[in-house]
């Protein structure tokens, strides 16, 4: 298996896996979405809320804010407290704001971390207050997985695409119809070599419009499922690279536990 990083921006990472089964790449994708533990606010104790939003809406908004940190937290199902919530499996954040003037926006950056968990993004509006309105609350964050609730899913988009293959036959007469009709504009005519060329193969959506419009049927679109591109878009809790590495670690651990249990069965 050959891995190539296609491109990386702040929140997105594209990686090409060559010579890997699509099922294997999909396993990595599903682990990233459902199995990597990240922290999120789970309980909110509202002491005072005179804002125009109900406590429940406020709690839901707080839950959706991506959180960083929490490396020292114990997963609740492995904690000595039995998952009820204690100092080892929960991290506390507080929010206390009283507006002195009208139209004060309370941002996620105002959440004060008492433990190791803190907001990954400080610019998310939580609520808007008029003068005299007050919010005072304590929030408990804990580790969780994407399969439990979407707030613990560390990625927004996480998708796989097979490598598109566009083959141009020798009887192409460079009429240029396909170049014009391609919705993704990936085809071009190379004037020097007098050949039809593909500009950016990964932008091809496999729509086969070029196949349909070609009068000579000289262009064929197919795909190569031995090569897939995985695109990860983090919400900010962990970096894309961290997510990819922990997904592989998790898969290795799962395979080992399967191997151990099968080994145990044949020996015993």
């Amino acid at each position: 298996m050959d891995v190539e990083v296609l491109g990386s921006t702040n929140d997105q990472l594209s990686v090409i896996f060559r010579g890997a089964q699509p099922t294997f790449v999909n396993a990595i994708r599903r682990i990233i979405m459902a199995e990597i533990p990240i922290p999120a606010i789970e309980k909110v104790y509202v002491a005072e809320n005179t804002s125009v939003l109900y406590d429940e809406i406020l709690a839901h908004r707080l839950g959706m804010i991506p959180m960083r940190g929490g490396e020292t937290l114990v997963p609740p199902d492995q904690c000595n407290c039995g998952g009820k919530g204690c100092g080892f499996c929960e991290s506390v954040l507080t929010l206390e704001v009283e507006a002195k003037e009208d139209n004060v926006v309370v941002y996620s950056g105002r959440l004060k971390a008492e433990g190791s968990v803190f907001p990954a993004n400080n610019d998310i509006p939580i609520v808007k207050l008029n003068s005299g309105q007050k919010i005072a609350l304590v929030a408990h964050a804990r580790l969780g997985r994407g399969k439990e609730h979407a707030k613990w899913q560390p990625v927004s988009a996480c998708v796989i695409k097979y490598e598109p293959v566009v083959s141009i036959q020798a009887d192409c007469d460079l009429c240029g119809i396909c170049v014009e009709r391609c919705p993704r504009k990936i085809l071009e005519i190379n004037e020097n070599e007098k050949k039809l060329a593909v500009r950016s193969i990964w932008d091809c959506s496999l729509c086969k419009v070029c196949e349909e419009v070609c009068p000579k049927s000289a262009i064929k679109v197919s795909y190569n499922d031995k090569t897939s591109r995985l695109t990860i878009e983090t919400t900010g809790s962990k970096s894309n690279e961290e997510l990819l590495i922990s997904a592989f670690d998790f898969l290795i651990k799962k395979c080992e536990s399967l191997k151990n249990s099968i080994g145990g069965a044949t020996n015993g």
Partner: protein
Amino acid sequence: MIIPVRCFTCGKVIGDKWEEFRKATLSGRNPAEVLDSLGIKRYCCRRMFLSHIDLIDEALQFHVHKKEEVNA
């Protein structure tokens, strides 16, 4: 009411980009261009911005100040 923290469909964090979007569109820029520059590519996230109305400003007008309550 107030801009949702995340896109309903894909879960991308969008709350932090609303104020920039609002400022830019009010100043006359094309919303499509603003969304592109903010990195909002998918149409699920784009509709979150285009269809949002900040009703919290309306709700805030009905808030009675504590001092006024005493006077009444």
